[in-house]
């Protein structure tokens, strides 16, 4: 049953990319980029999605927004409606409700359009505001995102990285969305700018009651912004729960290893680092059973054969591990 408290419910979402090869481009296999992700996002909150490079965070974000072609399995319910069941027209209407901010502010702005048009293009397209109020509306959105009205006539190449990211945020917010996927929005920026952008996102969330899916590999940023946190490993959500629970009491061995890698500014603090052996296996040919068993220090025979199911260990704290207690 769809719950109206949740703006987004993702159930067992799968997205495989075919590997083509051999004669006549036959499908010879698939990359299991997202392989069964389940979570739900309460309205007005932020969920952080962390994990190492290539674990499927970005694909998860894009698959939720139906930007990566058809899903392979599972369901994405946005405000209780299956996103992948909508026809073209309904989908276009839904686009205004869910938006995305990209990682690279340099490639995400069309270099041949002035900023005003980049931000306002979709506003006109969807008739968000009457024509008479259009200019005023764009100015307002730009102001909210820390941009000046005269920036409108400029081109992306005239802006710094932080400013470009503000433009991206303005473009997303101009459509007045309820849900924004922030796909590593700060990882291309230097630390001082990162803080500005994070604060801007926080401010906008308060003002507009936005829900974020905040994808990042920077745990401290996720800790700062998130209400809940999901940890991904090789296409699976291995642990998911409230930020406090996860950071206080990580249950999954991968989460533990990940958190032990957070640098501590105190040089005298004793570091109890969990060092993982080996490297991340190929998502085209993932290990059987628990995908983490090849690198897990606690792995048992059971882990090699049996896929762990998501278990609720505390209230709202889910983990996919046979050994977690």
């Amino acid at each position, binding site marked *: 049953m769809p719950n109206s408290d949740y703006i987004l419910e993702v159930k067992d979402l799968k997205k495989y990319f075919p590997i083509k090869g051999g004669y006549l481009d036959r499908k010879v296999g698939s990359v299991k980029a997202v392989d069964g992700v389940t979570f739900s996002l309460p309205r007005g909150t932020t969920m952080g999605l962390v994990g190492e490079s290539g674990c499927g965070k970005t694909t998860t974000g894009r698959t939720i927004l139906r930007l990566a072609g058809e899903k392979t399995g599972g369901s994405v319910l946005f405000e209780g409606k299956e996103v992948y069941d909508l026809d073209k027209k309904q989908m276009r209407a839904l686009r205004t409700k869910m938006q995305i901010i990209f990682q690279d502010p340099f490639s995400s702005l069309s270099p041949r359009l002035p900023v005003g048009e980049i931000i306002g293009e979709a506003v006109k397209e969807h008739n968000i505001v009457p024509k008479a109020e259009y200019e005023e509306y764009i100015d307002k959105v730009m102001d909210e995102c820390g941009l000046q009205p005269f920036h409108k006539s400029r081109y992306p190449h005239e802006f710094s990285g932080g400013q470009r990211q503000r433009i*991206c945020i303005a473009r997303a917010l101009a459509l007045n969305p309820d849900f924004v996927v922030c796909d590593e929005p700060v990882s291309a920026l230097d630390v001082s700018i990162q803080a500005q952008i994070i604060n801007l996102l926080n401010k906008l969330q308060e003002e507009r009651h936005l829900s974020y899916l905040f994808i990042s590999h920077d745990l401290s940023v996720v800790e700062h912004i998130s209400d809940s946190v999901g940890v991904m490993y090789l296409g699976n959500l291995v642990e998911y729960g409230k930020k406090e629970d996860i950071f206080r009491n990580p249950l999954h061995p991968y989460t533990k290893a990940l958190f032990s890698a957070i640098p501590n500014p105190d040089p005298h603090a004793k570091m109890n680092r969990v060092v993982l052996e080996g490297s991340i296996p190929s998502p085209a040919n993932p290990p059987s059973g628990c995908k983490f068993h090849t690198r897990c220090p606690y792995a048992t025979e059971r882990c090699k054969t049996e896929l762990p199911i998501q278990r609720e260990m505390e209230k709202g704290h889910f983990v996919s591990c046979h050994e977690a207690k």
Partner: protein
Amino acid sequence: MSDEIKNEQNDNYSLNDDRRVKTLSPGALVARRFFRNRVAVTGLVILAFMFIFSFVGGAVTPYTQDQLFYRNDSQKKQYAAVKENTEFRYELADGEDFPTMAQAKFILARKKGDKGEFETGDAKYLFEKQGEEFYAIYNSSNKLIAFGSYDLIEVKNKDYNNFEFKYELVKAVSNKQDELKYKKDKFSISEDGIVTDSSSNIIASASRYIIRALANDIILGDDYKEQLLAAIESGSEDFTFVNADGDEAVYSFKYDAATQTWEIMESVDTRVFDTYSFPTKKHPLGTDRNGMDMLTRLMYGGRVSLYIGFIVVFIESLIGVVLGGVSGYFGGWIDNLIMRIVDVFYCIPSMPLIIILGSVMDTMHVDPQIRMIYLMLILGFLGWPGIARLVRGQILSLREQEFMTATEATGIRASRRIFRHLIPNVIPQLIVTMTMNLGNTIITEATLSFLGLGVKFPFASWGNIINDVNDTYVLTNYWFIWIPAGVCLLATVLAFNLVGDGLRDAFDPKMKR
């Protein structure tokens, strides 16, 4: 602390201020970079000159491209021949005989003295020199039966057409007398041997010269002959004859020592095509082998070359952008299909095909204008695959850019995505390629026209202007036929390439070495 931050922000603002920083669109930036590139600007200037030269020049020039020019030429035509007689001619008295055998004996005997005798068989003859190369011949009974002289005698008046008169005449002429008495009449003899009576009527003439007309329709009058001989004897090389109608004609002589003949040439004024005329004020670059103004042909040729270049590139780009765009945007089996078609087109050897089609059109006698259209279509249809590949590649890479995902995420419709986001980003590379292709097309067109398979007479093209040079004589003697057209061709193609390079550098400053 907060004041400090505020000040800093204010400073930032002033740096960033609208009044301080001039906003430049990407297009303006490209233009600025382009105009900073001296080589490219040189190319642009050359192109501008070529356009003005071809389009404005063609309109301004007083001639048309196929206007023929004539010149007046005095052609020398053989008119008459004059030969000094060096053989004896014999005049016989009535009823007498002086056979050939006797003539030969006389020649031999004459060499022994001015007076003597000779015999042939049974007959015996006497001779006596009576003037210069003038001998009277008598028979054995001392009767004047004949005379031999170098002079040719012509008696106009029938009353005097008898042996005695002729004898007296030649005697007088060969002794250089200016008077002739015959019976009771008295005549005067001119230096040229013309005999006139007291009332200046020409009675007869005696001359050492044989004058012969060299064409059937020429009748040489006495006046003419008289003046001609006078001119020859005075040693001049030409003379002017005014006939009864007052028409003046100039004749020139040429003495041929081998045949001892003067050839009289008549100068005839004719209008001929003014071919291969060297540069003059009227024709600053001379005329071609048909007698057409070279400069005008060059202007019109530029028009044709540029027209063909632009239209061919337009056709190429239209097909290339549409097919390449469809291929890149939709991908999948459409992409596969179109790219295989591109591969097939790449395999077509275009030069042989064009040459064959050209000769087919020759055989079918296709109108030159329609032929030009066919040429453009053929070149256009053979040239698009390169552009299709370029556009496809560009669109494939642009499609994966995040700003394209962003347009999808913001729900912008497909037509706007293509025309507002994809196409403008393909245009830079497209413009560069098109510019380069323009130069190539002009070269191809010139090559075909030079081979006689492209643009045909009466239309001018730089290629078929150079085609006039079909032998080394023209090549070495008439520089103005091929150098200007060659220079135009070279400069235009070079300029297109320079501008293309300049545009590429301007569009992508990072590419610069």
